[in-house]
């Protein structure tokens, strides 16, 4: 990149010698961008399970369900961040990650079963997925009544690395 542009360093640091962590602003370090005019760029969602996603049927050991999705409005896959909080865990669960980002376990009974929740995205949608894992020896994980709060950042920035 050409050595032109604008730099603003943190107080006490010479902007000519600063590394990128010492700059409050640099035209060679794009800010991550969330659209202030978009209804989907910065969302907080309370998701209540009134139904239970299907359990795997052995010998299949997993069952994947999209439990929430939204169209992000781009023609490319955007960068997404997500933060999950389990407000009400699955009834009877022995383990819950009450706070996680991107991928986490919202319920489990034994070492042979668990329910994962994770985010994914493609060039049209952002998805919240639930995967139930059971290797045939575990217990079912019923999600009825489970309440999850999640915050999603959908950036205008893509995954091209440019």
């Amino acid at each position, binding site marked *: 990149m050409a050595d032109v542009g604008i730099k603003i360093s943190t107080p006490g640091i010479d902007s000519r010698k600063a590394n990128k962590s010492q700059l409050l602003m640099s035209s060679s370090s794009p800010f991550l961008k969330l659209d202030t005019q978009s209804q*989907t760029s910065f969302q907080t969602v309370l998701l209540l399970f009134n139904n239970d996603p299907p359990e795997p049927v052995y010998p299949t050991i997993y069952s994947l369900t999209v439990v929430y999705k939204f169209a992000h409005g781009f023609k490319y896959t955007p960068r997404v961040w997500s933060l999950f909080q389990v407000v009400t865990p699955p009834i009877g669960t022995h383990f819950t990650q009450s706070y996680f980002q991107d991928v986490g376990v919202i319920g489990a009974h034994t070492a042979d079963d668990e329910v994962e929740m994770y*985010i994914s995205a493609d060039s049209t949608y952002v998805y919240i997925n639930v995967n139930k894992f059971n290797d045939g020896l575990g217990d079912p994980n019923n999600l009825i009544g489970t309440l999850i709060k999640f915050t999603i950042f959908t950036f205008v920035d893509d995954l091209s690395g440019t």
Partner: protein
Amino acid sequence: MALPAGIFPNNSSPLPNQVVGLKLSQPGYSATNASDTQLIFNSSWPSVASAFTKLVPKGSAGIVAHNLGYPPFTRAFPMDDNGGFLPFIASTQDAFRIYPNVDAENVYLSNGPTTVAYMIDCSNIDLSTDVDYPVLPSVGVNTAYDPNFGIKISKDNKSVQSKDPRDFVLHSRYRSPLIQAVKTEKTMPSGNIRNGGAPNNTGGIVAYVNSAGKATWVYGFIKVGPTLASTINPVDSYHYCPYFSQAYPTTRTDGISTYTEYLFGDTGATIVVLRDPFFAPTIKQAFY
């Protein structure tokens, strides 16, 4: 979750509000004395920026040079074969690294060729340096956007007239997540030092409590020492600590109170605290 007994928050030295830099106020307000909610842009807002990004194709070498000269807080976006973001594969229970190990020169994705493609985004956040930024007030109502008023800086070789937001370094229509704090062992209170007389229980605990009293974006790392060092965990690299892991290292948090412990010859820990961008979210209720 309060911090457990015997664990204390790191020392804090919030930076004062800055009076130097670049400010752009909303129409009708003076930039010299406008509050943050009356500004369209303020270079002192501690915004998260991309200092280095790279697309790492599937099958590439798992160690990628960033050469930033500091260990950057880094997100990796694992990608499927269609270019989508896919951090987990349900059928195989494979979870991919979203917070890779880093040091001042490299990002460490894997010990050998990558099994999936990644886009890596190294930020302007230095994992080795403490910082505390003033906590900006929350925004209840978003201000109207005027496309004829504001500031924008395009990327190199991109037109400032472009309608593609990806072409901009800075555009006042868009806002970033904000840096709230970076806490390391350097500001660790003496009560958090652990000296059990053997490497396995000698180290310390880095801890943070969010004064805003609500869950925010927190991340824990340990600084690798010689005992546990390896090819993708070299000495002085920063290793991500998963939440709720039963193994070492781990981050304990409810998003408000957070602590990360380093032991086994590791030489430090870091907690990164980010917060929501400076505009109001869309709040929804959904049902499955």
